[in-house]
């Protein structure tokens, strides 16, 4: 029973959500919106499971004085600070001038922007390793990447700018690669993904794929 009912739910809901696409008539036209709301509500409840887990593990770490336990203190304190600022702020918790907004602007934002920005370094180091003519396939990767990079910045202007007006051969090559061979590969990948998702979704709906539900107990 513990597995059968979920499988029935998956089947019925799955079929209903495929069909809703083709039925514009109410109530089917509301399904997608309704599900998105429901999902957000379920996720908002579930996040407490995660948060409690984070707190539990951090507190155990502090209590047992495990390695790096000091940083667990930082996690707990900053979590409590942000959460309290958020809950105390009421519905308008995000309006400029609140404590929550200040923490967001001056701590959250620089951290996430910098973490995002270190990608620039990793893009450089990854291309150094990957763009190497080991074999034909790797050479194609190298050549395409190389040519596209050349056309993206000012090499045209620096090399030819003083000689010719609006002469940008590198940019043209770069655009050609992007618009044609790149496009072709992207399409094959995307069509493949569509088929993969259709077939996986079908396996899920039919209950053939059920390992995400866990065991039979």
């Amino acid at each position, binding site marked *: 029973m513990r597995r059968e009912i979920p499988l029935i739910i998956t089947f019925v809901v799955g079929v209903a959500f495929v069909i809703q696409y083709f039925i514009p008539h109410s109530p089917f036209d509301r399904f997608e919106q309704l599900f998105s709301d429901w999902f957000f509500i379920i996720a908002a409840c579930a996040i407490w499971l995660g948060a409690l887990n984070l707190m539990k593990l951090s507190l155990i770490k502090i209590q047992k004085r495990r390695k790096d336990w000091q940083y667990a203190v930082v996690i707990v304190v900053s979590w409590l600070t942000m959460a309290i600022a958020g809950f105390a702020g009421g519905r308008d918790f995000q309006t400029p001038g609140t404590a929550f907004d200040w923490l967001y602007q001056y701590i959250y934002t620089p951290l996430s922007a910098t973490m995002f920005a270190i990608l620039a370094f990793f893009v450089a180091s990854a291309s150094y390793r990957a763009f190497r003519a080991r074999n034909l396939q790797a050479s194609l990767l190298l050549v395409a990447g190389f040519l596209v990079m050349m056309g993206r910045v000012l090499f045209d202007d620096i090399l030819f700018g003083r000689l010719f007006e609006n002469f940008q051969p590198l940019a043209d090559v770069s655009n050609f690669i992007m618009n044609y061979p790149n496009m072709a*590969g992207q399409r094959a990948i995307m069509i493949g993904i569509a088929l993969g998702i259709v077939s996986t979704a079908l396996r899920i709906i039919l209950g053939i794929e059920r390992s995400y539900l866990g065991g039979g107990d």
Partner: protein
Amino acid sequence: MHFDLGVWIGAFLTLGIISFLYKDNPWYKICEAIFVGISAGYWIASLFWQNLVSKLYDNLAPAIVALFHGQIQYNLLYLVAGILGIMMLLRLIPQIGWISRWPLALVVGATAGLQFINYLVSNGVKQIYNTIVPVFGPVSDAGGIPPVATTGEGIGNVIILIGTFTGLVYFFFSKEHKGLFGGAAKVGTWFLMITFGASFGYTVMSRMSLLIGRIDFLVNDWIRGTFG
């Protein structure tokens, strides 16, 4: 000298994260711990106000009030969402934790249904549609399809056709990659490699932009802003 606390905190955190590139160190560990704590706190508060209050309470409360007046409103359906959310939380009680499979089954079922159709349309059918163009030759504009404008475009169209076709051959699972079929699959991998190289090269610029933004912050807002 002009001291701005927010800017100094920003600089401290920015440099702390960047220091990880040299090696793992206490400065980074502090920034990491702050980041995990602050962002987890941010999400729990936002989800509470934006989902539980704005989506659940605001929709459900008026519907329940109306119910007492004998009206049955569409928004009463949100009651089900509330129950499913509570079922999810029952995971905290091991004996009846299995009940959380119900909301999970609903989420996965709905996702399977929705993505089935959305991917079929936008990734499948639409991409096939876009690939269908005349490969060469002058075309009268009668049918409303774009005529082949230049030789470059004509060659490009042939490339797209070959690339998409052989790329699909590569993804075949139930046929061995040998002989003519294997050759086509090989050409397919060439196209995939060009695609990966090109998208990689194309993205370098936008990633550099992000770092430029941070360096600009350090140089102009922090150093120049503080020391004039």
